[in-house]
Structure formats: structure tokens, C-alpha cells
């Protein structure tokens, strides 16, 4: 059989920048092909080229994209419209923003049928309901809803339903689950692969996660800086990568096998202790009973150790971080630091506490004052606490830049001139400027590419060894937790469901929720044979 999609020597440029260079590959009928790469690798550009939907300003400078027999680069607008949705369909990246917010969900699924004249009116609505049911939703509950009334996972199912509604030959899924919680991610991917397998639809699957790709694809393509550096069977790509970049990616990919990185410990004097903490945010409506963000929580972080606080969005883990930093006040309970009760510390006592407890935030792009140079940013805590002369502070900033392994010339730059990884290093330098005893790290690597992630985690481990700092490491990612944590605490809906040494929790979880989380972490060495889906 001839391939559904053939890409031959494709080159795409945005102005002066070549986003894709000389890429060739094909997707056979019924095949699942994964394109793996970090941000800026050109993987999304490839996905959009397959839909004939390159953004304005992008030009195809060489090569061809053949969908069945039609050259998309040469096709006119009408031909392209005829193919989109009917022959090739898209499952987009961000389900939260990919549905028209003012239109009910059912008509949005039916629209693809109407556009292509496959059904109209009630017949289209009926077929939309069938499609929703195939995607694992209950149509009578969902079809008349607006997108904002559905959860992220449900919205992605709606989008899958719309993509499959017109029975396309190829589905392009562009990071379809990166905006979802891990447990939901797994369900969605399982369902998507099962559906495409059942209907014999080909799947072109774009992801930044080599493990996810290796787990589910028939073939894996690795992109780097616009070029295809490796392609092959997942087992080969992951276990015996030929290209050095793939090797680096495979090594950096956090997984769950092998011994845990660091031995757990329950000894050592606790540095920061939370006792019986409750915290409820006042609700806006005032009618419903508020669910507490944090519910009778006990937690302790030891000096020189890392406690990973793991949970999905809405679990309350970020609230805990803010409580520890005393950016929020608990409703009840006590917070002890180094034996002293700091629950209601104010003024100079609070400032004294903040010399010893520091913070690294999630998004390095908003965590740095855009008007200050790196030098001023790093020296800011010293300045705030009036430590040293301004020459001393400059010297210290230069030292710290070296400690976090940034080039010395970054000192006089501003945040906007730095990459995400570099910015996070600046934030870390700022956090250690005061030689704190505890640092709260709120998802410090989740906004970064995997290879950068691995280097930042490495830096954090090194700093901890040298300086005996305690970390409260907040993350949604068990694999990342495994890389850095001595102890793990798992949160769900404001409550701690499990806690213990990392080795124990991650290998023999007692709580079913922890098990579900662990199960959801992709395992490249457990290639899932595609099976017929159990119909919902």
C-alpha cells in the first residue's frame, strides 16, 4: 500500500530562520509515527506542514509534502480545505484553548461533517453524538455543554471525537496531552491509540517526551534544530541510539527503572515542620461549601535532604509551598522552623526567617524583574537584608554566577536576553545568595526541555551536597521526583495520601492513587502492543 503521508526533502523557513531542513519520512496506512524533539526543533512545523497549515511568514523553500497523491505545497486553498478534516485531521496541543468557547460542544464536533457535506442538521448532530461516545464520553451529558463546563481531559476527548468524526486517513496529534495531568494523559493516549488502531487510521504523533514516543509508536523520528537526526523502531532508538543527541535525550529522560537516585532517610533533625495545617480559600460565590486547599497536613523537611511533594493540578501542593514561605497564613495549625514557631511571625522576625528560607519558582520567564540586570537580581536579597557594601555584593553576584555555571558576561544582561534554562539558573543563584537552609522549589523544571531539565537537577543536587540545604521540591512528575528526592510525599485534594523514603514509595506504593500516578509515567521499555479498545 502506498503511504498516507510522504515528506520529501522538506525545508521550511521563517524569514531568515530555517525551521526545517531536508526532512524526509513517510507514514504508512495504520502506522503510528512519533516525532520527538525539544522546543525549537521544528517538530511542530512538520506537523503543520502535514495539514497544509503553516503559519503566515513560513515558506516551503524545498521539498514536497504529499498527502496520498496531493502535493500540499502546490495545492490551492480549496483543495487544501477539502483535505483538512476529511483526509487529515488534527488533535491539537492545548485542549483548554482549542474549542470555540461560545459554542456548544456537540455542534463543534458536527461542524466537520457539515463542512464536508457528509451530514447536516439532525443527522450531523446524531453522528456527532456517536463520535463523542466513541471518544469515551457520555453524549447526552456532554453534547449540550460549553467547553468551559468540561475538564481538560474531557475537552481533549471532544477534540479527538471531532478529529475522528469524518473518518480521516491520518491524524496529526500535536503534543496532545502535554497540558493535562499525568493520570489523564495516560487515559487519553491509550484511548487515542486504541481508536486509531481499530479504525486503521494512521497517527502522526508529535511529542517532546522520548519515553512517551517509544512506548506507543511503531516508528520514532528524532528532530533536532530542524533536522531529522535519527529514525527507527522505538526499542532501537531508545536502547541503542546511534546519534549522540538521541543518546543524550534517552539519558536525560527521567524514567522509573533502576535504583532510586538517592537513599531515603527518616533520620536527621527536621528543619521545617508543618503540624495540622488547614487552609481554605474564601470562595467567590459563597454558596457552595468550600473544599479546603490543604486539609490537616503534617509535613517535615530535614536539613540537607529533599522532600518531593508530588500531586496533580489542584492537589494543594503549591499552597503548601506558599504556606512554608509564609506568603499565606494557615487557618489552623503550626509552622515550626528550626524549632521556633514561625506561624505568625511578622516584620523583622519574618525577614529573619526569609534569610533562611528561599524560593525558586516555576516559570523562569516571569520570575525575574525585567528591568534589572542579572547582577542586580542576584544581589537583590543581599541588598534587601543590607549585607555588605555594594562592591561586596557585586563580588558575591559574580561568584554566584559561577556557582550556577553561567558565563560571566551574563552579569550585565537582563532576563529577556537569556534562555529558559539560564533564567532558572539566575533564579537559583538568587535563592542561594543568602546561604539559606531551606529552599522551596515550585515545579522548577517543568517549563524546561528535558535535556535542560537534567542539567538543572544536576546543579540542584550539587548545591545541596556542598551547602547542606534542605529542599521542598514541588512537582507533578514522579520521574523527576525520583531523580532528586530522598523522601516523597504524595498529595491529592489537599490531603497527604502517602509519604516515605523515595525508594519505598516509588517501588512499593501503598496507596492506589500513588500507584495510578506511577502507572501513568511512560515506560519506553514497555512497548504497548496496540489492542482493540474495549468500547465504553
Amino acid at each position, binding site marked *: 500500500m502506498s503511504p498516507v503521508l510522504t515528506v520529501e526533502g522538506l525545508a521550511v523557513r521563517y524569514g531568515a530562520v530555517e525551521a526545517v531542513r531536508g526532512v524526509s519520512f513517510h507514514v504508512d496506512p495504520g502506522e503510528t509515527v512519533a516525532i520527538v524533539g525539544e522546543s*525549537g526543533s*521544528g517538530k511542530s512545523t512538520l506537523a503543520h506542514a502535514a495539514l497544509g497549515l503553516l*503559519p503566515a*511568514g513560513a515558506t516551503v523553500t524545498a521539498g514536497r509534502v504529499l498527502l496520498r497523491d496531493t502535493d500540499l505545497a502546490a495545492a490551492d486553498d480549496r483543495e487544501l480545505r477539502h483535505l483538512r478534516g476529511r483526509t487529515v485531521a488534527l488533535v491539537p496541543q492545548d485542549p483548554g484553548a482549542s474549542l470555540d468557547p461560545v459554542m456548544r460542544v456537540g455542534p463543534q464536533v458536527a461542524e466537520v461533517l457539515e463542512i464536508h457535506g457528509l451530514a447536516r442538521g439532525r443527522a450531523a448532530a446524531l453522528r456527532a453524538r456517536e463520535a463523542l461516545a466513541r471518544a469515551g464520553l457520555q453524549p447526552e451529558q456532554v453534547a449540550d455543554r460549553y467547553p468551559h463546563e468540561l475538564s481538560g481531559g474531557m475537552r481533549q476527548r471532544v477534540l479527538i471525537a471531532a478529529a475522528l468524526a469524518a473518518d480521516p486517513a491520518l491524524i496529526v496529534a500535536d503534543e496532545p496531552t502535554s497540558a493535562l495531568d499525568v493520570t489523564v494523559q495516560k487515559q487519553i493516549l491509550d484511548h487515542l491509540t486504541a481508536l486509531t488502531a481499530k479504525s486503521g487510521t494512521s497517527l502522526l504523533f508529535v511529542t517532546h517526551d522520548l519515553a512517551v514516543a517509544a512506548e506507543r509508536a511503531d516508528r520514532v523520528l528524532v528532530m533536532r534544530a530542524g533536522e531529522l537526526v535519527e529514525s527507527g523502531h522505538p526499542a532501537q532508538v531508545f536502547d541503542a541510539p546511534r546519534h549522540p543527541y538521541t543518546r543524550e535525550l534517552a539519558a536525560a529522560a527521567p524514567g522509573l527503572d533502576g535504583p532510586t537516585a538517592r537513599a531515603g532517610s527518616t533520620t536527621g533533625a527536621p528543619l521545617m515542620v508543618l503540624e495540622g495545617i488547614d487552609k481554605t480559600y474564601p470562595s467567590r460565590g459563597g454558596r457552595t461549601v468550600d473544599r479546603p486547599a490543604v486539609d490537616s497536613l503534617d509535613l517535615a523537611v530535614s536539613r540537607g535532604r529533599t522532600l518531593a511533594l508530588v500531586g496533580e493540578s489542584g492537589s494543594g501542593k503549591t499552597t503548601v509551598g506558599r504556606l512554608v514561605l509564609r506568603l499565606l497564613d494557615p487557618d489552623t495549625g503550626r509552622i515550626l522552623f528550626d524549632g521556633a514557631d514561625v506561624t505568625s511571625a511578622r516584620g523583622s522576625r519574618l*525577614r529573619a526567617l526569609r534569610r533562611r*528560607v528561599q524560593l525558586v519558582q516555576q516559570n523562569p520567564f516571569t520570575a525575574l*524583574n525585567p528591568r534589572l540586570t542579572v547582577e542586580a537580581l542576584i544581589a537583590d*536579597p543581599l*541588598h534587601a537584608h543590607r549585607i555588605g557594601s555594594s562592591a561586596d555584593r557585586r563580588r558575591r553576584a559574580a561568584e554566584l554566577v559561577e556557582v550556577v555555571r553561567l558565563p560571566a558576561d551574563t552579569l550585565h544582561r537582563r532576563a529577556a536576553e537569556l534562555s529558559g534554562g539560564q533564567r532558572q539558573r539566575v533564579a537559583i543563584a538568587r535563592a542561594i545568595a543568602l546561604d539559606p537552609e531551606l529552599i522551596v522549589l515550585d515545579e522548577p523544571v517543568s517549563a524546561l526541555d528535558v535535556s535542560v531539565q537534567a542539567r538543572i537537577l544536576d546543579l540542584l543536587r550539587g548545591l545541596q551536597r556542598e551547602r547542606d540545604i534542605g529542599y521542598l521540591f514541588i512537582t507533578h512528575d514522579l520521574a523527576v521526583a525520583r531523580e532528586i528526592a530522598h523522601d516523597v510525599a504524595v498529595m491529592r485534594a489537599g490531603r497527604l495520601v502517602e509519604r516515605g523514603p523515595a525508594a519505598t514509595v516509588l517501588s512499593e506504593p501503598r496507596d492506589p492513587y500513588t500507584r495510578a500516578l506511577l502507572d501513568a509515567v511512560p515506560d519506553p521499555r514497555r512497548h504497548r502492543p496496540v489492542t482493540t479498545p474495549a468500547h465504553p
Partner: protein
Amino acid sequence: MTVALAKAPVEAPSGTGPRRRRGPRIGLALAAVWLLVVALAVFVPHLLAPGDPLAGVPALKLQPPSAHHWWGTDEVGRDLYTRVVHGAGLTMSTAVLAVAMGVLLGSALGLLAGLAGGIVDVVVMRVVDVLFAVPGILLSLALITVLGAGTAAVAFAVSVGSIAGIARVLRSEVLKVRTSPYVEAAQVSGNRPLRLTLRHVLPNAVTPLLALAALELAAAILSVSALGFLGYGAQPPAPEWGAMVASGRDSLRTAWWLTTVPGLAIVATVLAANRVSLLGGRRLR
């Protein structure tokens, strides 16, 4: 039609279509040149038009544009070009004065509300709401009823109309910056409230002020000339663009240039100020 990517790849910053890039650059250059000319007309009008804007030759009244009188003459034989050039001083100084007062008062109120919060915020913003609820020109007219006509009164009356908008933008800017992660980080770094405000909040909150001032200048020119047209600004025979349009009204049928030319000066200046305000990058309203 352009449709940007869901998540624009790093290589393709959004909004770099050809329309975005080339057109406005030319527009910006033209705007800058025009504002420069206006500045010359304000500060050294005799350099551009050496004649006397008030002296007319009755024999040469209502002459159409010619090589001798580029833009013609008015009903008492004064050179229109000279009057428009000299009129820039009155119109622009009134507008600039209005913006200066408006920006000063408006940003003071906005910053006060945003930084103080609580009851101060509520009270200040309710007052701003009221200023906002009365259309600009009516507010100005009410003040002129009391203050009487004249450029100072017009400047003050127009400035009051711009306070509400400026105060709102700055307040929301302060609130946005105050809840930003980098201010939280600075708080955790141990910054005292005063230093937090002065070093981390204020400098970032006032970024849009310059663009806002340019935008307000454009609005103020329109308001000043409208009040001048209605007869409340500079009194004749002083040249003021709005008043000149009004006086040309009587010869509308015979001397089109008397209304058209001063109006074009207003349009060009407002256009230029609006274009320059876009330099701030962020759209303010």
C-alpha cells in the same frame, strides 16, 4: 489570512507579517518628522513663517492658495499659512499643559489606589468612576461654565477629562505587577515594603506611562480644538486651530481652504501622536 500557530515556535515570533513590519515603519518616520515640524512651529514659528499672523491686508482677503500665499488668505486678508504655523503654539501648548496635568493627577490617583488598596482604593476608584461616567466634553464644558473661557481654563478642563483613564490604567498596572511572580520572589528575598514598592513594583508599573501620555496628547489636541471651535479657547484674533476652523465656517461656500487647512493640521498631529504612542508596544485601550 494569517493564522498564527497554537504555540508559535521560537523561530516565528507572531505578528511579523509583511503588513506589520513595513507599513508602520514608514508611518512612524512620517509621524516623527511631522512632530518635529510641529515642535519647530511651536518654539520658533518665525523660522517657518516670518510674517505676522495677526496683520492682514484687507485688499487681499479670501485669496485662494497661490505661490504667494501657499494656503490662501482669510476674511481680513491674513496669510493662512502663517496663521496655521503660529496657531501650533496655542493649540499644542494648551494640549501639552492639559496632558501634563492629567498625567500628574491621574497617575498619582492610580498609583495611590493601586498601592494603598483597601478603603483608599475603593474611594479613589469611585471618584474615577464618576469622572469616567461623564463624557469628556461635557465635563470640560461644566468646568468652563465656572472658569470662563481662555486657554488656561481649557487646559484644566481637558486635563480633568483625561484623569480617569490614566488612573485606571496605572492602577491595573500596579495590581498586575504586584501579583507577578518576580515581586513575590523579591518579597521572599526579604525586601521591606518600601523597597519592594520603589525598586520592584513602581518602575515596572509606570512603563506604559510614556505611551499613555502620547495617546492622551492626541486626545487632548482633539478636545482642545473642539473647545476652540466652540469658542471657549483662545479668543480672536489669536490663531488657534479649532477657532480657525470655526471662523472659516462663515466663508464655507467660497473659501474651502479656511476650514480645510487648519483641520488637516489637527488630523496630522493627532495621527502622529497616536502612531508614536504605539511605540510603547502594549496596546493600552
